[in-house]
């Protein structure tokens, strides 16, 4: 067990262990004795922890040997790809980002799980939220990944700070900026030091570049998930050199004014700890903050945190002209209170994929383990524990408050957190992350570098937009525009 999580999580784990043994007893587990499954993921404790913790139960029930291998997060993609592309195949299965899956699916490295999922009753696949079931797990209509974690970004705010200011949670990005400006400089943790209006991770080569599409999404996509927010799905022209993306960049740069001085060098972990020790009024993050904030040992903001779906915009991009147009029934069919909201499934949630090059029994054992991890009686426990890094992705997880109350959330906090999750997950205008071959080069290299230079003052917004557009076009041409377009359309379910 993880030391600082203390007694409570130990209790939860005991509970979890007990239920899992029961579950296996009833499900009539298959026999995989003698099979060793090497599963690669990144060095935890997040993600790896629940895998390692539940592996013994699975091993006891099936006789399989589960071996969790961890590598640093930033190397996971390349290490996995190198292992499979050079046919070393020392890794049998992996828990990684569905966003990367296209680089594994097109060369045929991943097992097609469609039929297995269909035959798997214990998985309760219909309980998995629609976005993950139909977009995240699938490519071209076939299922290749099993979702273990629901990843999308939300906005978090300090309920006490907002009450003090007499302001409502942000609905638009303008609201967000107004709150950040008003709160910036207030003392929020009682140490007489001025604190910050907004903390957004902006570190280069980290996990910061997703934030820009969390902002830009509301301007760029209004017609539902399959409209896409990165390229024009007809021509593969990048959606970055237009009034919508400009507005997003302006907001992104503006938030820096109300942030910590070294925001440009903060990774998500740093902003999370800043927020949980009480130094920030607002932040954009994945679901993690909800569970981290209720850990009394490391949080000063227990029950002071509210969550909401990512703020939106009252104007959206008209793709024909490249200009912004006001929201109406035609331009923003999914608008809420006249505001177009577009929750961003950044990264896509850790999911399991299986190496197609290993023998069938190993594949089956790996699938059985992922299914074991994902079934409600296990995952519904895991998503309430901060250390797992797993966030809700099943309908039953945000409809039932009991587990969250048991985990230490107040009813108010739980309904705010789960409400934001529920709103996001049920939004038909969720943005699916970029999933075309070599998407890392589009985002982690071209987009991330341009954003970092913009924030560092090396270039201005015009240069940044021009540079991202040129870089993406160059990659399209280099890798093959038609292939990329086909992959992009497949990821949007077109």
């Amino acid at each position, binding site marked *: 067990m993880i030391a600082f999580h203390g007694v409570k999580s130990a209790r939860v784990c005991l509970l979890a262990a007990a239920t899992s043994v029961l579950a296996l007893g009833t499900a009539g587990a298959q026999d995989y004795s003698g099979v060793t499954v090497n599963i690669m993921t990144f060095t935890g404790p997040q993600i790896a922890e629940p895998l390692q913790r539940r592996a013994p139960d699975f091993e006891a029930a099936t006789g399989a040997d589960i071996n969790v291998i961890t590598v640093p997060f930033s190397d996971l993609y390349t290490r996995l790809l190198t292992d499979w592309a050079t046919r070393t195949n020392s890794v049998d299965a992996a828990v990684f980002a569905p966003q990367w899956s296209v680089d594994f699916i097109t*060369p045929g490295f991943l097992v097609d799980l469609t039929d297995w999922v269909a035959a798997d009753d214990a998985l309760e696949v219909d309980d998995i939220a629609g976005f993950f079931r139909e977009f995240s797990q699938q490519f071209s209509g076939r299922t290749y990944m099993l979702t273990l974690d629901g990843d999308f970004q939300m906005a978090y705010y300090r309920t006490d700070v907002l009450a003090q200011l007499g302001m409502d949670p942000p609905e638009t990005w303008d609201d967000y900026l107004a709150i950040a400006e008003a709160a910036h400089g207030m003392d929020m943790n009682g140490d007489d030091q001025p604190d910050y209006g907004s903390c957004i991770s902006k570190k280069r080569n980290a996990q910061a570049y997703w934030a820009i599409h969390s902002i830009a999404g509301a301007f760029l996509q209004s017609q539902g998930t399959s409209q896409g927010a990165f390229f024009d799905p007809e021509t593969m022209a990048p959606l970055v050199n237009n009034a919508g993306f400009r507005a997003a960049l302006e907001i992104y740069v503006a938030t820096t004014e109300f942030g910590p001085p*070294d925001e440009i060098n903060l990774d998500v972990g740093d902003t999370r700890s800043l927020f949980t020790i009480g130094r920030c009024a607002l932040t954009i993050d994945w679901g993690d903050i909800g569970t981290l904030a209720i850990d009394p040992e490391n949080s000063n903001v227990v029950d002071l945190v509210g969550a909401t779906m990512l703020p939106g915009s009252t104007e959206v991009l008209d793709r024909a002209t490249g200009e912004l147009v006001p929201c109406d029934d035609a331009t923003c069919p999914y608008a809420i209170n006249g505001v177009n909201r577009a929750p961003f499934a950044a990264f896509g949630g850790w999911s399991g994929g299986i190496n197609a090059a290993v023998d069938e029994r190993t594949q089956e054992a790996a699938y059985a383990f992922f299914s074991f991890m994902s079934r409600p009686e296990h995952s519904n426990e895991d998503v309430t524990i901060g250390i797992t890094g797993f966030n809700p992705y099943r309908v039953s997880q945000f409809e039932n408050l009991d587990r969250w109350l048991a985990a230490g959330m107040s009813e108010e906090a739980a309904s705010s957190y789960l409400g934001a999750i529920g709103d996001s997950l049920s939004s038909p205008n969720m943005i699916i992350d970029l999933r075309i071959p070599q998407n*890392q*080069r589009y985002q982690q290299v071209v987009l991330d570098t341009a954003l970092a230079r913009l924030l*560092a003052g090396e270039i201005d917004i015009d240069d940044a937009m021009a540079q991202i557009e040129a*870089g993406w076009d160059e990659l399209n041409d280099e890798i093959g525009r038609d292939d990329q377009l086909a992959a992009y359309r497949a990821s949007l379910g077109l």
Partner: protein
Amino acid sequence: MTAAPADRDTVGPSVGRRARFEEWAERQASLVFILPATLVILGFSLFPLLVSAYLAVSRFRLGPGGFELSFVGFANFRKLLFGSEQFHFLGRLEALGPLSWAVLIGVAALLGWWLARAYRNPKTGVIGKVGRTITATVALGLTALTLTTTLAGGAFGSLMTTLFYVVVGCTLQFLIGLGLAILCAQPIVGRNVFRILFFIPVMVTPVGIAYAFRMLADMSRGPLAPIWSAFGLGELSWAADPWAARMVVVIGDSWQWVPFIFIVLLAALENQPREQLEAAQLDGASGWQTFRDVSWPAIAPTAATVMLIRIIEAFKIIDLPNVLTNGGPGIATESMTLHSFFAWRTQDLGGSAAVAYMLLFVSVVISVSFFHFVVRRARREHL
């Protein structure tokens, strides 16, 4: 051979065979001693160099069941030098102003004079001429690059950042290392304690040093935070300023490598001829005079060599900028190794190999030039 084995030779045929083997082995000794090292190094340098060269002129793609490499000529290099990666590798280039032109022309004239002298000297061979021409060309190119990215208002790319680490870092380390060595060479109490203490940083893993310095340099939560806020700097961040961020990298690097230079120079100082030192002191020479006339000539060859080692290693810097800032703000702290590594991490193997090759080129030219024009000269003049 001497008598002993010959006597044994007569005892029996088996011993005879053994003696013959020993004799054979003895004849081959000169090869046995050197061949393993040569072959291993050859295998580990030639093969990777060829494969990397192949990667540098190809494009890597994942294909059905594996990967495919397609030949693209010098596209990867063109991209770095003239294309979309120019800002990243060379930097943001601006037109030179009058001052920059003046400096550039001055340097060009100096290099031209140096080259002309070498060409007129009958002792300079063909290789010497070619080598000097390469050195001069690269020096001129780097000068122009320095001017356009600093004086003219441009910004550093990974090439200039790497050179900054090498030049500033190595200079700083040399000065501090030498200073400490001189202090430690005085008749002091506890010299061995200092020697061991000062040597420890070399043994700390660079990744660890990088993380330690990230903690130390944190201006709001690090140990120096009270000092920063006392000066009203608590709300500033070194990580947001390119030059401050580069300096933090250099400071971390220096913390690790000063000891190496220190310990070697201290040894050299302790080893210098005592008689001259004492004679100088008896003549009433000042400390500075003694150092300049006696100590420095004695340690110069060692200093030149240890700096060569340091320069070679300094070109490979990656851990510190990677951990401290991930290459930010913008691309301000990105070294070439880091540049190449980032490209590799996104499976841009061709681009990665191209950067690596450029690094190889620059570091070979500079290291070899340093060896020929500084180390050899120092050894020749002072030995």
